[in-house]
């Protein structure tokens, strides 16, 4: 019936030339024409509530090769490397699903933005080194024609880690590993420390390690924006919605030891729109879990952890959100322009912010003092009681400081061993993880993105071997412990 109506009722309307329209210019005002057609239909058939051409521009596409759950720096990095390393241009259709397009609770934007190579695990050091070279050449990696070059506001001031007597031996061996991997780190004694940084009080410090190159801090929003821009130019789809369901199909298979194992694969993702019950089922081949602090919920949707405890089916993803505070204060007599990011023996850290004697810093609370991660409210008493005394002890100038502002953000904290989870799940065969980095996800994002893309495209890690970060270790109980966490 509608087809008959169109030429009769609207034929004349479409063919008359109105001022402002161009001959043959159909494609230039498609949306306007569609709304005019809808209005005409409504006027002709006033009673019919039919929505002839419903607006679906906010929904994700119905098919996508890869669905990335989470649009933070890790998710975007995986998307970037997938498109960069694919064999044929346009060969892979990638969809990034992000629940909150304002990124109000995303760890990326709330991060302090530091990058350093002073880790104890060689894999972490290599990831940070690669990320430093990525950030250095960011205008080659993320070049978009017609867009201005990115300015990351990188401060190459380095990290200064202080160690007390009991940690000094561990620090020495860590620095040895770091130097072997190619990081430019040097050890300093308390005397050298006093010479170089006269504002430090070296009481209780036995040894310090100072990163000379490729360490510092930068603006994470700029990286996020640059990645987003580049991805849009490469043809990645973005969708704002929440993943509410995975539709899986299972297969029972026999292992070489003659045990029955149920392998699942996700073939559909249900993406629910904001403030409505509307959802779109997206058929997909691969799902990447880069949901940060909420990765465990996404993993639970896929059935990871639903089984008797102690078995592979019953091993949950041990990533949970942990709230961390960052405080900004002003101290006119504070350390000068050369201040690195100083991490004290007590775990308190601080760095300079800008030219105006502002500093920001914080401290990781002890296990028993962990704040409630239900919201991002800031606890100012924590600064007064747990952070300021340590700062004032280490830098006497900080006795007179004035807190300007503060914020809180989540760590996607891996309760098992505080290191990331990368790679496929052994039972849900097409879900890949890129999460759980417990506070250093931002600085390792480029390297991790590349590793996950290599895993998907080639089947194994090609450049940096992240096998110690696979999911299996949670079942096998093998901890890949990282000692230098801030």
């Amino acid at each position, binding site marked *: 019936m509608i087809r008959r109506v169109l030429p009769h009722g609207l034929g004349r309307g479409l063919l008359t030339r109105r001022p402002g329209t161009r001959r043959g210019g159909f494609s230039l005002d498609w949306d306007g024409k569609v709304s005019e057609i809808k209005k005409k239909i409504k006027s002709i058939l006033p009673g019919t509530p039919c929505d002839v051409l419903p607006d679906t521009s906010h929904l994700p596409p119905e098919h996508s090769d890869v669905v990335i759950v989470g649009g933070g720096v890790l998710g975007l990095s995986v998307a970037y490397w997938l498109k960069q390393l694919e064999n044929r241009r346009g060969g892979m259709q990638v969809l990034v699903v992000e629940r909150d397009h304002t990124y109000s609770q995303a760890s990326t934007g709330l991060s302090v933005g530091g990058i350093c190579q002073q880790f104890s695990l060689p894999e972490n050091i290599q990831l940070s080194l690669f990320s430093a070279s990525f950030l*250095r050449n960011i*205008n*080659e990696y993320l*070049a978009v*024609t*017609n*867009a*201005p*070059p990115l300015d990351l*506001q*990188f*401060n*190459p*001031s*380095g990290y200064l880690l202080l160690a007390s007597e009991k940690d000094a031996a561990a620090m020495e061996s860590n620095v040895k590993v770091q130097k072997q991997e190619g990081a430019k780190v040097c050890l300093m004694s308390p005397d050298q420390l006093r010479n170089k940084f006269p504002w430090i009080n070296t009481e209780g410090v036995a040894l310090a390690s100072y990163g*000379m*190159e*490729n360490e*510092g801090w930068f603006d994470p929003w700029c990286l996020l924006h640059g990645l987003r821009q580049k991805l849009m130019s490469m043809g990645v789809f973005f969708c704002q919605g929440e993943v509410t369901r995975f539709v899986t199909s299972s297969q029972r298979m026999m292992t070489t030891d003659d045990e029955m194992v149920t392998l699942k694969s996700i073939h559909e993702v249900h993406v629910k729109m904001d403030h409505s019950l509307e959802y779109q089922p997206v058929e997909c081949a691969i799902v990447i879990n880069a949901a940060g602090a909420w990765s465990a919920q996404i993993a639970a949707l896929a059935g990871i952890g639903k089984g008797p405890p102690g078995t592979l089916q019953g091993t949950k993803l041990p990533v949970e959100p942990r709230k961390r505070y960052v405080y900004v204060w002003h101290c006119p007599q504070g350390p*000068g*322009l*050369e201040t690195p990011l100083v991490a004290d023996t007590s775990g308190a850290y601080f760095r300079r912010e800008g*030219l*105006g004697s502002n500093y920001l810093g914080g401290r990781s609370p002890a296990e028993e003092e962990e704040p409630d991660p239900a919201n991002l409210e800031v606890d100012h008493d924590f600064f007064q009681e747990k952070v300021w005394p340590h700062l004032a002890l280490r830098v006497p100038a900080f006795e007179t400081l004035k807190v300007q502002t503060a914020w809180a953000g989540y760590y996607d904290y891996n309760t098992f061993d505080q290191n990331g989870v990368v790679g496929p799940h052994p039972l849900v065969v097409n879900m890949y993880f890129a999460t759980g980095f417990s506070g250093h996800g931002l600085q390792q994002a480029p390297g991790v993105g590349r590793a996950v893309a290599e895993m998907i495209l080639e089947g194994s890690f090609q450049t940096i071997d992240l096998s110690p970060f696979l999911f299996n270790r949670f079942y096998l109980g093998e901890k890949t412990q990282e000692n230098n966490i801030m």
Partner: protein
Amino acid sequence: MEQELGDPSLRLVAPMWNGTRGIHRLGGAVVPEGNQKKERKMLQFLNNHFYDVEALRGYLLQREMSKVHLKNRSFTWLEEQHGPYSAGAFFILKQGGAVKFRDKEWIRPDKYGHFSPEFWNFREVPVEAVDASDCEINYEGLDNLLLLKELQSLSLQRCPHVDDWCLSRLYPLADSLQELSLAGCPRVSERGLACLHHLQNLRRLDISDLPAVSNPGLTQILVEEMLPNCQVVGVDWAEGLKLGPEEQPQDTASPVPA
């Protein structure tokens, strides 16, 4: 190529159809004027509507970048054959800069890029001073520059690819470097200047005309505090200060006497 970079009036406003150099200039970083604005608008229109134009521009940009990379490759073989000083000197001379060996005269390439090969014989003579103004040295190229362990004076004026990352690599020269000039480098900001504190023997630092530094007067004060034995030249500390209501409005071009 170097001539175009060296001449400040031509530096940022490159004509569009001047071979390939105009098309690929990084989009928003340049402020075109008048006629060039129209051309740039048309170019952007073409870029947004045709994949071919976008691909061509992307290709030309990649080609320019790979040219810079080629210029900054590591001369490890030369270092093994002729020693670090000659290899480093060759790198600078090839880029278009000038070198001065200890007790010898300055060696400069002429306008055709040719230079005298006598420095190959100076195996043990260290290089004292390097004038790398307007050279396309970048982070990788510093590998070669850092071979010159006993360098005393370094001039990196108006180098377009020297940025904050490069400044963080200069610390190996801390024992010998006494004079450093960064005047006119478009990518150096106050964050890079912060890592010059390793250069404790520096006696003269020129940080004039750095467009990326947000607050030149304050930066000068902070750098002077950071390097107490060094004479920091280039920015007057009063620049950027607002005149109080009781002072007469002065010509802002003339600096307030210190």
